[in-house]
């Protein structure tokens, strides 16, 4: 579900390095073939994205239109508290398999946000500072170890991270803090941060390295220490790239499925406590879509969740891109 915006990565570099090609259009036959192949590849990506969106949208639309689905679920019941039977207290409940199915999305939304916020709060400071260290302070040999090591973390399948959280991390955390629920938003959030760190690290590291050397030399020549140079000159100069990294990390955290499915406990509890069990959107889809009756209200609600997640990451990416653009303009104006 987080497919909406890898294009953000490296936008900063792409725009500055794009010079007009000399002799464009006079290419040989091989050049033209290569260009066509590359263009086709780019369009394939866009085309499949559009197809995915159309498919998810098509399956989600009956939430708004189908009378049959409205017997069990409609927008009001998805977002507002509902009393399943007359006389029962109104509540937000996710109980899709029930005498009276209840499809309140609020517990799932809160669960998703809890895990994402915890993951991002852990991952972004760690990853950005690690990237800053790696690009500005680390001796070459250390950099050559750190960078591949962190990037290798991205290669760990998320099911392995999830398994680690379920078997090991949950025990450590419960042993250390004595929480009632082994599997909770913090456990899942820490697991998610392991998936987010490599993305944020890699993209921000690239952003730091692409800051022109002249900035550092100028800063040091003015008498700034290397720490002041890194913190006051390099970090602000790379801020569009770092922000893009954070947006990508957020998208990954929202959409990640396996880790939360295994480590969060999957109880749709509506609470503010980070040590309660949570059920996220993505885990709900993964757990329930396999056995749902095609065409039932439950099925369409799951697709609606998919569309909702898609729109959520898409909007985040859009907002991120807008902000990155603003930062870039500001930096160019100041330079």
């Amino acid at each position, binding site marked *: 579900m987080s497919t909406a915006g890898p294009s953000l990565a490296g936008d900063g570099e792409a725009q500055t390095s794009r010079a007009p090609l000399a002799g464009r259009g006079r290419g040989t036959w091989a050049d033209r073939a290569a260009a066509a192949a590359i263009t086709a590849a780019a369009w394939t990506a866009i085309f499949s994205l559009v197809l995915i969106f159309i498919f998810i949208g098509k399956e989600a639309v009956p939430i708004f239109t189908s009378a049959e689905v409205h017997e069990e679920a409609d927008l009001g019941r998805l977002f507002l508290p509902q009393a399943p039977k007359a006389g029962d207290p109104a509540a937000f409940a*996710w109980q899709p398999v029930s005498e009276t199915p209840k499809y309140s999305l609020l517990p799932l939304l809160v669960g998703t946000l809890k895990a994402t916020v915890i993951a991002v709060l852990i991952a972004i400071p760690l990853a950005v500072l690690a990237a800053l260290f790696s690009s500005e302070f680390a001796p070459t040999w250390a950099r050559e170890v750190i960078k591949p090591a962190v990037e290798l973390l991205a290669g760990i399948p998320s099911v392995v991270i999830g398994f680690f959280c379920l078997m090991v991390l949950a025990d450590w955390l419960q042993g250390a803090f004595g929480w009632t629920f082994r599997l909770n938003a913090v456990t899942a959030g820490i697991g998610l941060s392991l998936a987010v760190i490599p993305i944020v690290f890699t993209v921000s590291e690239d952003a730091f390295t692409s800051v022109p050397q002249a900035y550092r030399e100028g800063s040091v020549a003015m008498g700034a220490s290397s720490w002041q140079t890194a913190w006051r000159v390099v970090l602000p100069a790379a801020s569009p790239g770092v922000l893009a990294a954070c947006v990508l990390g957020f998208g990954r955290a929202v959409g990640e499925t396996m880790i939360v499915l295994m480590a969060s406990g999957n109880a749709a509890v509506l609470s503010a406590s980070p040590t309660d069990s949570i059920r996220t959107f993505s885990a709900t889809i993964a757990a329930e879509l396999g056995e749902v009756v095609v065409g039932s209200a439950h099925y369409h609600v799951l697709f609606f969740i998919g569309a909702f997640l898609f729109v959520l990451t898409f909007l985040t990416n859009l907002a991120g891109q807008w902000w990155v653009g603003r930062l870039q303009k500001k930096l160019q104006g100041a330079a």
Partner: protein
Amino acid sequence: MRKAMVCLLMAGVLVASAGCGGNVTKSGTITIKGSDTMVILGQRWAEMYMHHNAGITVQVTGGGSGTGIAALINGGTDICESSRPMKEKEREQVKKRHGKDPKEIPVALDGVAVYVHEKNPIPSISIPQLKALYTGKIADWKDLGGPAGRIVAYSRENNSGTYVYFKEHVLGNEDFAADVQTLPGTAAVVNAVSKDPASIGYGGIAYGSGIRAIPVSKDGATSPVAPSLETVQDGTYPASRELYFYTIGEPAGAAKAFIDWVLGGEGQKVCEEVGYYPLRKKS
């Protein structure tokens, strides 16, 4: 109404492999409809049976036991799969409509074990206590005769037949409490319970280290029974049930051949592969 969870249709167009027609001479289609719990089981039976008997097509659909029984009454299916015995009223309807009594054929057994941590001292639990616990009316071990402490309840994901069984059979179709955690698979429940002394979970009757499958009593008064193949097979373990086929009158023709195969050694072996229990061998 409880919508059907699974509604799979075994397409009849499965190309029959060439070869001899086996011991069944006439070809035909057998339709099976009913219990969602049994749909996977029914499909496995159908696949294997069709593999051995070219020319016979077995179509399996879910929809729920009630749907299957209704279809049997309306003549919409040859065999009805049901995870509950037929009600008297339904039997009368079959008799009135078709002039024959429905034939009940137990085909497999289903049972759920309740696990606690191996250090948990509570000796047993009753079905009403389980219901109160999983619907959120009991949240402390001292209400069950254990040391004071919050109960952490684990359940299966709502796409599992075990979940549906537990919900129907133990909770009387009430909803699970919101804070009951759901895990993918019996193995995950066993693992979670083994690591948490305050927890309780349920799943297939399997054994794992660090957990104890506690004896279950039907109500507070009857004596608790530990889960095992024997107690499930002799019907003394309360969290177990028979799974049935129903036909109108005595089964005949292709349906009879299929049912005989299901009750035979090969068919009963499938029960265990899919996670249920074979019937007690009749001596």
